[in-house]
């Protein structure tokens, strides 16, 4: 079946940014347009936002808890008012979930919506082995996610990160699942980041994806007020890439995921907002300039320190 990806924009923003009502309306409209409906009312629901360090949604780095709140309302309103809903995340190299949830407003969300906040790093892990690109990828993945009746991925619409020089074009729903890996020091996966992303996505298959582009991140944060929804990770990321000004066919994680059967772009149907108009608003981030500005500067700095004997501050080590 041809994948459908929907785009909806929140009304506003006002001077104070986007309001909860406008965000909720956009999320619900995007989900309606995406046309997903579970076969039976889900009893257990897991929602995976993208929490990046302790930077909140206004920086474009982290999923807005109001978007997750709107998804919770949709699940309860349309599919099962009694569903047991968990927001899930793992610890990362530099981020501890026990700090991230309260700092980023997820504690408040959990209290308001009566949902559970789960640190997947503390749960039972399944050691998985997956063939990707002809190589085996071994990963610990949370057992609980495999058993959820409904799994929703709520990534952020953003460019980067530029993991250890293994630059990604975009970070969206395929990359969001990288955050489900049970290992805290995920930097060890950076040298094979695309293969690892695809391996996770071959195991964990969200039923629906709701992308937070309320504040998106390119060369700078931008108030797009955009929500993208769909059921096919490859299709959703393809549309997200186009919104951010990239050719999806040139984004390795998308092409590799498609080749490995995670999803498809074939016959893609886009509903709602005009992708080209959105792409004109998005502040595209140049990967080449990033590499030039940071990598070249760091190389020059190390050469300078070697020549003069001067120090490099720990911040730049």
């Amino acid at each position, binding site marked *: 079946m041809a994948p459908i990806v929907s785009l909806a924009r929140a009304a506003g923003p006002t001077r104070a940014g986007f309001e909860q009502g406008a965000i909720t309306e956009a999320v619900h409209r995007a989900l309606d347009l995406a046309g997903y409906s579970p076969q039976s009312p889900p009893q257990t629901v897991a929602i995976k936002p993208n929490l*990046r*360090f*302790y*930077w*909140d949604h206004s*920086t474009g*780095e982290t999923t807005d808890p109001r978007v997750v709140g709107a998804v919770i309302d949709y699940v309860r309103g349309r599919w099962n008012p009694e569903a047991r809903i968990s927001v899930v995340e793992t610890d990362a*190299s*530099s*981020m*501890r979930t026990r*700090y991230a949830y*309260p*700092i*980023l*407003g997820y*504690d*408040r969300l959990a209290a308001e919506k009566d949902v559970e906040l789960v640190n997947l790093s503390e749960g039972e892990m399944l050691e998985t082995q997956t063939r990707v690109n002809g190589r085996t990828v071994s990963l610990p993945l949370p057992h609980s996610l495999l058993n959820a009746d409904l799994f929703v991925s709520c990534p952020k619409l953003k460019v980067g*990160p530029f993991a250890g020089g293994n630059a990604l074009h975009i970070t969206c729903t395929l990359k969001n699942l990288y955050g489900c890996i049970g290992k805290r020091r995920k930097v060890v996966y950076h040298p094979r980041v695309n293969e690892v992303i695809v391996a996770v996505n071959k195991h964990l298959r969200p039923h629906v994806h709701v992308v937070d582009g309320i504040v998106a991140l390119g060369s700078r944060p931008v108030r797009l007020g955009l929500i993208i929804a769909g059921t096919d990770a490859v299709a959703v990321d393809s549309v997200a890439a186009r919104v951010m000004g990239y050719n999806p066919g040139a984004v390795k994680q998308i092409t590799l995921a498609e080749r490995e059967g995670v999803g498809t772009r074939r016959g893609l149907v886009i509903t709602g907002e005009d992708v080209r108009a959105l792409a004109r608003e998005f502040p595209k981030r140049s990967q080449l300039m990033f590499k030039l500005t*940071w990598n070249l*500067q760091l190389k020059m700095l190390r050469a*300078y320190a070697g*020549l*003069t*004997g*001067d*120090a*490099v*501050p*720990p*911040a*730049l080590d």
Partner: protein
Amino acid sequence: MMRIGLLGFGKMGRMRLKAARFLRGATVTAVADSSKRALEAARRQGVPHVYADYHDLLASPAVDAVIITVPNAMHEEAITAAALAGKHIFVEKPLARSSDECLRIADAVDRAEVAAMVGHNYRYFPPVKRLKRDLDSGALGDIVLSTLEIVDGPLAPALESRPIPDWYMDPGDRGPWLLDLGYHVIDLFLWFFGDARVLHAYLDRRYGFAHEDNASILLESGAGAKGTIHVGWFSKLIFPSFDFRVILHGTAGFASTDQYTPASLKLHAAIEGAKNALRRTTGRRIHPLSYTFYYGSYVEELQQFVNSVRSGTQPPTTIKDGWETVRIIEEIYGSAARSPALTNVVSTAAGESLRKAEGIR
């Protein structure tokens, strides 16, 4: 040659070791840290003696002075032990978490008759030094209004995000939040104007930390100079961006650190780097870390400490300076707690810190 031991080899310990490499008349010969990885890192950086327990370092007769960069909660204990061992002391700011701790530290240092200096490195930033010169020369007249701002902290982790130590996130271990960045700008106000009282303080938070993450404070010196202070932990800055400035408005003129900060820090780095390369090739001493604009302050400050110990003179920032800054911070928390307009803030945002401040009082 003065032999220095470094107590604590975390973020600031590593910075101090890098700075100490350029000291004249002193060298770091030992490092103590409870972490094996930290000690291995110290060894790799050429430190000959490493200790898992800092008491063993203090017992070594081959150490004349110490740089203390352990977590705040350990300052009193480490300073007291170093003083008892007869070592001269340089301690990273804040001096301590409370006036009570400062009092006991001052007593221990006085009894031991060792030199003690508190690290207030913002005084050595090039634009701050130039502002102080303007002020002291009388070129600005009498200062009536001033603004001191800093927004930085753990959400601005330079190149990439790094783990934040648990103690740094815990108000119990770290002490009141203003001891972090607020300490620097309050110290500058005291350094510029001599004394301060708190007219008003508003403590608030945007993020869900266990404490406030932004503050607006109004100080007044005995001579009537007012200072509006803004402190924040909420920004995701990327190096070399640095959201810090001081503005002085006087009866004869005004001056700002922004005037004395290069418009482009990258261009500044290129020029200073080229100058150092020339110095090196012509056999002269380089100006360490001058290309970073701010980090050179660590070298200059430590050199002042070494010079003071070697000459037997009083260090430029004393225990009394550190204590006074802590006292003002306690007064700020007290002021915020007393203000009826801030009831909601007291009960939510600043509650943890205020309860702590009340405990101190």
